[in-house]
């Protein structure tokens, strides 16, 4: 379907790469650029020029990445719409964060081949490009088909089909009541429908919950080790690495003074970021390192806040405490081999705390458990729920379905006509259908005819 809305997608292949490109097309592209990109040292963006600057989440003010950005205003663009291209640092995590930011600014995830489709519909594609374009779409189609096939066989389609079942039956009850007023069909049982829809709603919620876990398991998490200097951050990193000897890659971070190491913790790929210590200092190089650390804090999925158990909680600790407020934090009290002196302030008490000794190795297993448990709920791995939902596209569809169901549950039984709330159910089924295949009007009629004795 052609829509006038704004679409976006990652234009570069998934995985590690030098740069990753997020492409945006549609009426909202220029506005999104204005909101999320701050060019260094220039005014507004001119069409077809490259700008260097920062990608910033306008809701929080956080810096996501440095990027090169180009805006190509309609009609001089691939789709003949306003097109924005954001070239950010490669690596799936950063690119995905940028994509999610763009999505949060009102863009919709593009369907496979949708940019090309728009290019066609807007009369952009000419004869010379035809062959190449068809090939391009074709390869995307095959990839999409392969994924669809995989999903179909997998857990997801089963789960969604189960969720759809209730919706589908509810819709049939409502439609039968609407369409056959002379066939003595009773007013559908509100409780039955409400409970069926609520159940579906809960199933979708479960799948959406599983999404973060599934994503976490496939793509890993970033864990930043923060703490004042000499508190044992680097030994903690080394301990974790040495413990399992499970180094997958060891690459220098995109920033000079943060070391990234990837370690496998119970199957969870964890990127450990060992940062420069934070403290008051006059040293310029050290200040620069600390600035980088502070910038990275909000991007990390979890902060391991390391304190020295043998010393009182001091101003330097407090500096870090302030920096990590609002983040997901696991408090690590190191040096448990020495007498415990530290008294953790009230604000940190809510966070999970693990006592370790990097020296003796004591508590490291507990730490690994705690770290894992932060991301993966107990029993999830056994239940295979985590594997169900993996594509951002599917999550997108489920979230839309969830929205429609919410709207249904709010309207249903409050005097809003059934034909109106039926629209919510239809749209929810439509959204779920994007994952498992459409529910056709004929299928609804089949259900009606099999349930009700209809006919004059």
């Amino acid at each position: 379907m052609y829509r006038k809305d704004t679409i976006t997608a990652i234009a570069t292949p998934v995985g590690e790469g030098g740069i990753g490109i997020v492409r945006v097309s549609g009426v909202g592209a220029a506005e999104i650029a204005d909101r999320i990109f701050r060019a260094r040292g220039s005014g507004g963006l001119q069409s077809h020029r490259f700008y260097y600057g920062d990608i910033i989440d306008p809701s929080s003010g956080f810096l996501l990445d440095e990027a090169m950005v180009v805006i190509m205003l309609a009609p001089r663009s691939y789709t003949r719409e306003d097109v924005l291209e954001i070239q950010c640092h490669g690596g799936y995590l950063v690119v995905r964060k940028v994509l999610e930011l763009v999505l949060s600014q009102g863009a919709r995830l593009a369907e496979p081949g949708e940019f090309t489709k728009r290019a066609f519909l807007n009369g952009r594609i000419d004869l010379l490009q035809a062959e190449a374009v068809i090939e391009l779409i074709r390869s995307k189609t095959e990839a999409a088909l392969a994924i669809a096939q995989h999903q179909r066989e997998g857990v997801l389609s089963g789960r969604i089909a189960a969720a759809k079942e209730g919706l589908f039956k509810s819709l049939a009850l409502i439609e039968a009541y609407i369409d056959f007023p002379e066939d003595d069909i009773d007013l559908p049982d509100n409780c039955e429908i409400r409970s069926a829809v609520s159940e579906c709603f809960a199933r979708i919620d479960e799948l959406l919950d599983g999404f973060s876990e599934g994503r976490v398991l496939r793509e890993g998490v970033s864990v930043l080790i923060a703490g004042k200097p000499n508190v044992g951050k680097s030994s903690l990193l080394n301990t974790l690495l040495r413990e399992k000897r499970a180094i997958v890659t060891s690459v220098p971070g995109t920033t000079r003074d943060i070391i990234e190491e990837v370690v496998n913790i119970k199957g969870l790929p964890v990127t450990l970021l060992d940062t420069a210590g934070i403290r008051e200092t006059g040293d310029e190089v050290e200040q620069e390192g600390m600035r980088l650390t502070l910038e990275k804090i909000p991007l990390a999925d979890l902060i391991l806040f390391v304190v020295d158990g043998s010393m009182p909680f001091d101003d330097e600790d407090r500096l870090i405490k302030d920096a990590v407020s609002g983040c997901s934090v696991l408090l690590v009290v190191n040096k448990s081999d020495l007498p415990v002196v530290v008294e953790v302030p009230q604000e940190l008490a809510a966070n999970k705390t693990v006592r370790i000794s990097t020296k003796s190795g004591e508590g490291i297993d507990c730490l690994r458990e705690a770290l894992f448990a932060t991301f993966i709920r107990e029993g999830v791995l056994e239940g295979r729920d985590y594997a169900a939902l993996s594509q951002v596209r599917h999550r997108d569809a489920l979230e839309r379905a969830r929205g429609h169901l919410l709207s249904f549950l709010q309207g249903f039984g409050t005097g809003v006509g059934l034909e109106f709330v039926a629209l919510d159910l239809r749209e929810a089924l439509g959204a779920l259908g994007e994952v498992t295949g459409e529910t056709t009007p004929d299928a609804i009629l089949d259900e009606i005819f099999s349930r009700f004795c209809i006919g004059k």
Partner: protein
Amino acid sequence: MVVYEKKYDIIVVGAGHAGCEAALAGARLGCETLLLSINLDAIALMSCNPSIGGLAKGHLVREIDALGGEMGKIIDATGIQFRTLNTRKGPAVRASRAQADKQRYRLRMKQVLELQDNLSMKQGEVTGLYVKEGVALGVDTKVGVRFLGRTVILTTGTFLRGLIHVGLTSYAGGRAGDLPAESLSASLLEQGFDVGRLKTGTPARLDGRTIDFSRLEIQHGDNPPLPFSFSTDRIDRPQLPCHIAYTNERTHDIIRANLDRSPLYGGLIEGIGPRYCPSIEDKVVRFPDKERHQSFLEPEGLDTVEIYPSGLSTSLPIDVQFALYRSIEGLESVEVMRPAYAIEYDYVDPIQIHSSLETKRVCNLYHAGQINGTSGYEEAAAQGLMAGINAALRTKGKAPLILGRGDAYIGVLIDDLVTLGTREPYRMFTSRAEFRLLLREDNADLRLREKGHEIGLVREEDFDRFCRKRQMIADELERIRSTRLLPSGTDSSFLEEFGLVDLHNGLSYEQLLRRTEFTYQELMRIDSTAAGLPHDVREQVEIQVKYEGYIKRQLEQIERSVRLENSRIPEDFDYAALAGLSSEVREKLLRFRPDTLGQASRIPGVTPAAVSILAVAIKTGRAR
């Protein structure tokens, strides 16, 4: 074969509900039109229910009327009970239904046809199409006359190789009492059409003098009766009630005991019947737990005792029919005047026609009504009207009129047929219309009057009347937006009743009408201008204001689909040469040959990616 000297612009074969609308539309658009019927005494005959309308069907009738068709006017003139269905539900799913005086309906339509300029009627059975090089040039009749026409519209109803079943007895017939059309199917096969078989049925007609109505529940029509047509001011014919009867366990036992004598269960019937209109034996077999089935006893007219018992169609043998009807309370000594029967007939799967209703195989040949696999007078009339319009436009060298799924139920109907085909008799339901909230009976004129006027079917006086209404609606919308209820100038008990006591800045009337509990009834208590407006204007304004959110949502949905709907696929498009399609999708596209990308996207199994590939290919093909 004698070639008739006069050459027609349009030849309509069949004078049922489709044929009559087709012929009238053609003639009114200035085309020399010939209407051929196997029996001129059976024009616009109601072969089954003596009624017009119902859910989604009433919508169709209002749309036919808005475009300048005849059905709504005829039923208004001959209806004997009018009811609005679903009055307790929202405006989109309310629908009109009327009992017709069957004979008066038919005679009235015949009279309108006879008085129509440019229109001739002749009795005759068409035995074959006269086609040369893929172009329809006329038709041949049984008595040896060849009529020449620039376009031909087939509306064959149940007559193509019609086969009637009563129990295990069967005989050829187009309808009880009428001859079938035996040879036309062969002519269609010869042209390469894929011809299939459908089945439908009708109940017995009962002698009303032998029914004890005092033991049945009575059901009156609405008072006052509301007309179908936008041109009718009021209904002044005397009105009759219906009665409600119920089957019981004894009825069901009789049926069960005799299933071996049913042609359906005995395997004699090969045609596929409608699931929404099953025979009583079907209902008993499929829903064994249901203790009783309801039947409306509908009068067939003012001057007849014949009664139509709805829901009790059957193809069981005549002795079983006597027993089963007499097992019903109130019908203990009922006399059957005409037996119930099932009928099988040929149809041409509608994936073989374009949205204009012209066939893909034979140029200038149009199909409408049951030949396209539909059932129902209204579905037939809607297609007949469109076929008549499009045949007329063809003779004038103009592009066809195609209604979209967001324009009308007529659009949904035709799009479903030509995009998906049908394997069972197709009936319209509101659930088939994805833009249901927009396609209401109340706004059929706002949706379609202008189109009907543009092509020249809507009379000037009707159009003027419509324009005045439309203007009044616009003025009233403007007025309620700009008029405010001021607490200071309003009766305090009124304010209290609607929780408006704390109101400081006032509310516009529009804001008031948005509230669920607040209607024009309430507004008129404080606003005298509203009371002076016609009912239909107030109704329209109220609906547009109250349901604005939903209406907007649906309009946005339509907006999104527009581009695909407007992208046409060339008729000779070479799917085989198109790289990138899976073989399953290619096969489907080859079979369905959709007219537009929108249609392609609705064919089950055609993926969005395939539509993208198609889109690009069409565009580049065009550039070439």
